[in-house]
């Protein structure tokens, strides 16, 4: 049984609930959404670098860093005020953040934002049951590429496939949908049914260490207190090519099935789940304040077991978000850490032995 040990909390913590913390893909910084502002922390000094405020009239629910190697960081924020903000760091003074552009379109609270791997596409979803895809067409200029409205309820989370231009979305209507661009417009190519209640979060299996033949799998967590792994049914390649030619847009060109359910550990809603690039392990957090790490049993693949549990990571408060990242903790070597964000406004780093 491995152990989850507390490394440090980023300070000063926020004074009230924090929804999520997104580490930057390359730079040692992390953004935490709390209230109507974003708090940018340094993962080296574990202290607050700057706070971005004034952009949104209501709380920010989700934020995502734009991939790409430009030295100035750019971040997108989705807020309850139904708008999406895009901010970028001032070239000369890294403390300052410029407010680049507001993407208006959603009719109600925006729940999640995600950049595609190349950084040119931005997916957003909202309680108005729609998923929007925006494309950057120029300097701080974005165009709506698709408005996808097949979900029957509030869309909670969107995530891009680590490699292909394939988008996954999880919803209040208990379903997960996959979207691809078919010739010139986007459509739903798969509906993953199985969860009994709201699906709160999803994450793709990272490229490293996956089974080539099957392609990346998907993990999802839900209010039905289960965590499920999904994979594409084999023998799909040919049919998929053939379908592209048919004039009728095939409704679900792909067939995805539930491969496994992770051992039951949580006792209340599971809000967030993340699949680690380095160790290929999965971590989940939820309303019961537990942090749970699972690992896949190498020989009998598709068999998962719990490798570590930590109760009351944020004292008696609920934990809203979890993510893996790599950080060089003060003095030590760069190692993989878990970042949790809770209702107590704290952002905590954990090491998993």
């Amino acid at each position, binding site marked *: 049984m491995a152990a989850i040990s507390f490394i440090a909390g980023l300070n000063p913590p926020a004074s009230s609930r924090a929804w999520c913390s997104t580490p930057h893909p390359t730079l040692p910084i992390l953004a935490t959404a709390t209230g109507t502002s974003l708090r940018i922390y340094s993962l080296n000094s574990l202290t607050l670098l700057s706070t971005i405020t004034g952009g949104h009239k209501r709380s920010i629910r989700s934020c995502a860093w734009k991939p790409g190697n430009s030295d100035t960081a750019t971040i997108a924020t989705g807020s309850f005020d139904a708008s999406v903000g895009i901010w970028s760091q001032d070239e000369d003074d890294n403390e300052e953040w410029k407010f680049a552009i507001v993407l208006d379109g959603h009719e109600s609270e925006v729940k999640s934002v995600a950049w595609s791997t190349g950084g040119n596409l931005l997916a957003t979803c909202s309680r108005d049951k729609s998923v929007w895809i925006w494309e950057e067409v120029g300097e701080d200029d974005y165009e709506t590429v698709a408005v996808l409205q097949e979900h029957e309820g509030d869309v909670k989370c969107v995530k891009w496939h680590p490699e292909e231009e394939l988008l996954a979305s999880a919803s209040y209507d208990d379903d997960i949908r996959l979207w691809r661009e078919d010739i010139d417009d986007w459509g739903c190519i798969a509906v993953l049914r199985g969860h009994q209640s709201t699906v709160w979060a999803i994450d793709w299996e990272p490229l490293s260490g996956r089974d080539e033949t099957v392609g990346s799998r998907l993990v999802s967590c839900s209010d039905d207190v289960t965590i499920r792994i999904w994979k594409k049914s084999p023998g799909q390649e040919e049919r998929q090519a053939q379908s592209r030619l048919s004039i009728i847009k095939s409704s679900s060109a792909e067939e995805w099935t539930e491969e496994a359910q992770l051992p039951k550990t949580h006792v209340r809603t599971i809000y967030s789940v993340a699949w680690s690039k380095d160790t290929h392990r999965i971590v989940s957090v939820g309303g019961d304040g537990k942090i749970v790490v699972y690992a896949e049993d190498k020989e009998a693949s598709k068999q998962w077991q719990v490798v570590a549990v930590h*109760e*009351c990571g944020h*004292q008696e408060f*609920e934990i809203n978000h979890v993510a893996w990242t790599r950080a060089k903790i003060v003095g030590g070597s760069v190692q993989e850490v878990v970042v949790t964000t809770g209702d107590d406004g704290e952002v905590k780093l954990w090491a998993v032995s």
Partner: protein
Amino acid sequence: MSEILNANPTIRSAADLPSRRREPTKKTKTQRPFGLLSSTIPDSAYTPDPFNPSSSPESEGSDNDEEVEPIDEQEIYDLIAPIQDPEHPLTLGSLSVVNLPDITLSSTLPPTSLSNPSRPAITTVTVLVTPTITHCSLATVIGLGVRVRLEQALPPRFRVDVRIKEGTHSTAEQVNRQLGDKERVAAALENGTLMGVLRKMLEGC
């Protein structure tokens, strides 16, 4: 005049609502020995002797600090019964929308466990709401009012589950789903008009 959804609900008088029975208070000097008969003795006769306050009844009377009064169902009931119905100048208690038997406390995380003895216990409060009429569209607002009141009044170690009582409402399932969604509740609280309604409902508490 907007048509009132339920013009004639049944009312329970305040005196009949469940309340905490007056525990037999330990008799202290400040209690008058013979009740009414010693009402002729003015209060100044009972002021503690300033020279030895420790002997004064005040400090060792009803105030001993060790005795812990746990949060129980009655206290939860006392927090939500005075909430005002959005439609009538009446409380949820008098309309029997909330009732003591429909409130349950259950331990989600037992207080002590091996791995981390000092860690706090987590308790779940489940409140079943009985709308006055089966298709009442206000059930969601009433449920939200109950949840917001309990989340503001109870310590963070409590988890609040508010649900519509089975068989009492046509769309109970959707209402329960909404009331259980922490994110939608948080978003609703940032909506000015809804907060206005909720604040009016909670004024009486």
